[in-house]
């Protein structure tokens, strides 16, 4: 991989997530992207800039305790674990095509688990090495904006790598 990308999020910390939302309520959650070494695809995503904030999408018809979120949150960090690496270009491509849903620990569509509970925090942080407290989940959506279980990956800000989640 020639380019190194940095994805910096607006949603990573509790406070910044909130501030971003408040400012841009009608457009929904956003993702801050920083292309540290001038990677082409990243700059294309940022429309010629090295840093930008992009709009992300939400899944459709998925609110509540549907199959996707039920299975995701009860397995996350337990049997749903990081496996092989996910190239960051692929994430950038899906973000460009508006097919990527971005979820942080306090993702508001999660009404299955209490994000403040000790267990959930623990399981969530285990998605990344080094006890990274701010993993970001990327779920690729199909053409009907429905998430696909086989296409969920986790981005670890500290290591700046992403891995596909698999049931072990």
């Amino acid at each position, binding site marked *: 991989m020639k380019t190194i990308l940095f994805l910096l999020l607006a949603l990573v910390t*509790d406070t910044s*997530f*909130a501030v971003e*939302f*408040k400012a841009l*309520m*009608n*457009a*929904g959650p956003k993702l801050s992207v920083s292309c540290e070494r001038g990677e082409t695809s990243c700059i294309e995503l940022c429309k010629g800039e090295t840093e930008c904030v992009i709009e992300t999408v*939400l*899944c*459709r*018809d*998925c*609110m*509540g*305790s*549907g*199959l*996707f979120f*039920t*299975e995701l949150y009860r397995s996350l*960090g*337990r*049997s*749903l*674990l990081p496996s092989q690496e996910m190239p960051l270009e692929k994430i950038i491509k899906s973000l460009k095509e508006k097919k990527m849903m971005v979820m942080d620990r*306090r993702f*508001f*569509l*999660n*009404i299955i688990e209490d994000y403040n509970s000790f*267990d959930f925090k*623990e*399981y969530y942080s*285990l998605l990344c090495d080094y006890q990274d407290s701010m993993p970001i989940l990327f779920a690729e959506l199909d*053409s*009907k*904006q*429905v998430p*696909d*279980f*086989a296409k969920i990956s986790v981005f670890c800000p500290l290591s700046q790598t992403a891995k596909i989640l*698999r*049931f*072990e």
Partner: protein
Amino acid sequence: MTFISSFLLILLSLNLHAEEWKKSQLKIKLPEMNNLEFSNRAACANDSNKPTKSLFILIDNLNLGKTLYRFAKNENLDSSVFTTTGIKTYRKTLLQALNTITYKLVNRQLPLLPVNTDHYLTPLSYQDLSRRCHSLDRCPELDIYIKSLWDLSEKKYLNYIPRILKFDNFNSNLHFLKDEVVKKNRVGCYEVKKFSALEAHLYGGKPTKDALSELSSALINNQDYFSSCDEENKMPSLKVATYQWDLLISDDKEWDRLGFDFWNSLKLYLNYLMKDEAFLKKVAGEYAYIFPSVSMSESVVLASNGCGSISPPSCTMDYLSKNSMRLFAQDEFKTSMGEIELMKQIPSSLADDLLKNPIVDVNRDILDFKNYEMAHQWTENFFDNFSKVKGFFKLRLLNSTKNLFYISRTKVEHFAASLDRDLETLKKSPDSNEELKRSFYHLCAEYYVGTHEKLSFLKGDIDNLSKNEQLKDVLSFNNDYRVENILEYLSSIRNEVILRCNRLEKEKFWENNLAINRPDYKRWYRQEVYQEKPAPFDDSDPSFLKTSPGFISIADHNGVNKTELSLCGSASECARVYLADMFRLRAVSNYLTALVPNSGFPTDANIFNPYSERVACKTYDPWRKTKTSMFQFFVDLSQAGLSIINPMPVYVSATIDPKTPVSFATLVKDGKVFYDPSFNKDKVHASLMLDLGAIAGIPCLISISDIKQPPVAYYAFNGININACNEDSKNTATVNDSSDIRTSKTSHSECFTCSLSLVGSLKQVTTAVPVVRPFAFLTYALINLYKNMSDPENVPRRWEVNPFFVHETFRKYGEIPKKCVRSLSRGDLCLESKCEEVAAKSVYANFNTYIESILTDPFGQQTKIKTSSCSKPIILYNDLSLTGCQMRARPYTVEDFKIPSSCKVKVTK
């Protein structure tokens, strides 16, 4: 002259004393509410094939509320205000979307998207999309198609039809609603606060004086019972909302033709519009971003208000599954969960249930409205039960598919080798391996029962699951995993298990003492073999040898460390878990559409009419009693004619399938009728067909009756008589109607009868003198017809009540007089005279006002009507003589009234 003047003076004084009607407190224009359609069982069953005109919209906002609350907390917003406003906005958005779509459909700005896409005039692109997309809610191409139609409807054209025809080859006669099918293009929308006699058509068959009085009382005190959707009211419940949504249909025939297409279109456009950014931004403002994530299939239920349907009834798993949700509204749901099929691990199929219970209650408050003081309490209970069952089924689905997935990753050879190793250990020292021994015993017992007797239906049901798109999503946690894998793997495991179990049987291995505990069997086995009642919401099973690491383990983080969780301890235990989970997966398959919904469409169900699926699955025929009664009548009449000649020498073959409607003409055509060879066949046939006349073509349903004896080889015709069984009344049971079926546990259903026996009943008549016979038969025919047609439940009967007319009748008299029950039950108004009724209806048709009093002069020349809008009466001059009133079919127009200049009465547009 003096006499005339005094008479006029009396009239004048009468005018001065015209009795005042009671004041109205109605805030809603009642003419915008549909007539209440009352019906008995057969009529209700029959009406299930017609599109409904009225809906209950039930909304569950619990998930939305939780989401908005989290969102607000994350954003440091006032969570209470943000959540409450969000829920209110969602309800408003949904109702507005429904109204916008309806407006465009009735104004022909949008075409109807037909339910039946097999018609040769179905628009080609739409037909192509319906065929290519496995299910319409998961079809992105359809979204694009609907978006194009919607964009077209947003433009300004005088006539949209030519543009729509150009877009796809729609048909102007089939795919557009005609003018005024929906009265004034309006819908009535009410938020239901309390259930009342406005739902009386769901409570009881025929409108009674009491029901009508209750209805009038509910209308007079309407603010306690309902309010207009336009009113800004405090929400009675944040969790749920209950609306009644009426389409005011003025052309029933046209509505019956296109109504199902209307509802289908409404759902398709609604799915689009509730995700449309422009519409949401306009109506939902800051919530526009969140609303597309709301799953309408989870949170919105459209329930037809009455006997009609939203989707055409069909005997399919989808339809049966959706209608099964009426169970959740019933009070007995919570008390009898142990009896409910869907809690069982091997539930009988939904179709079996219909056969077991062909006759159920309808129009008897079957959903227990009366047990709840407030409407929202009923809706909360409904969604509460619904959510609990949905949650249980989701977990059942997820747990079973995950277990099946993990177990099937183990190679069958590895399984077999492990079974052999365990068996070897067991045989060496059976006494010291009691648990392993019992595990093997249960394994063999469960596989003998589970795979031999059950596999046939299991395979069929699992095959159905493999076509389910939703399940594909669930299984997508592994790219290579398919439903087919699950079945193939079971087959392989079964072979290995049965081979070893047969060997143990042969070796008489189990003959040594072995303590078997019933609770050690898997739950499905105990329910199936020991008829154990299911424990509500509990699928747990006993598990053997669950040591760690087990034979099959799954990854698990317990806080800090990555560990392995034992799924099943040994090969025998894993094989048992696999079979148990197969049954659990199969149990979900029956109810997948209703209980594990995952689409953009609201769930629609005919929850008030349990006959919709009974008619669709042909376990109840609403016209059966009528048809057989008429058939009997014609037969009796023919017999009256035939009684002067000799009985016909005709026989009919017995090879008729049960449940198949057969007419005499069909029997002749199919060569199942034989003639005595000593007669001329053609002459006998011609004579018989002439005598039978029209009845030859009337179908007669061959039903099954309880009899131990095998059926006789042929049916003898004696006169006009079809009777499958001998005349021994102990053995025969002529089935006239499903309600007459008597089940007998000891006998088998083997004998067919067609309920057209004249032999027994007419024996005495046939011995009478020839001249008397025809008259006797005629009298008998008429009496019989009257008796049959008086059946209160099985001959369709309908009544119609116009709520506004009930309200006005009450205002006039201060009560509902007994004399008015009949005319009100015909949907009519009931005042002092026909002339008053014509005058009142003319006022309602032309003016937006309430009547305070009416006085017609005895000569019928003029009627003075005092209204709430004027101090002086408005006068109707015209032919209001008694004959004129009786003859008048249409109301008078505005021009026929003399309106005082001081009067500012509003004219209805």
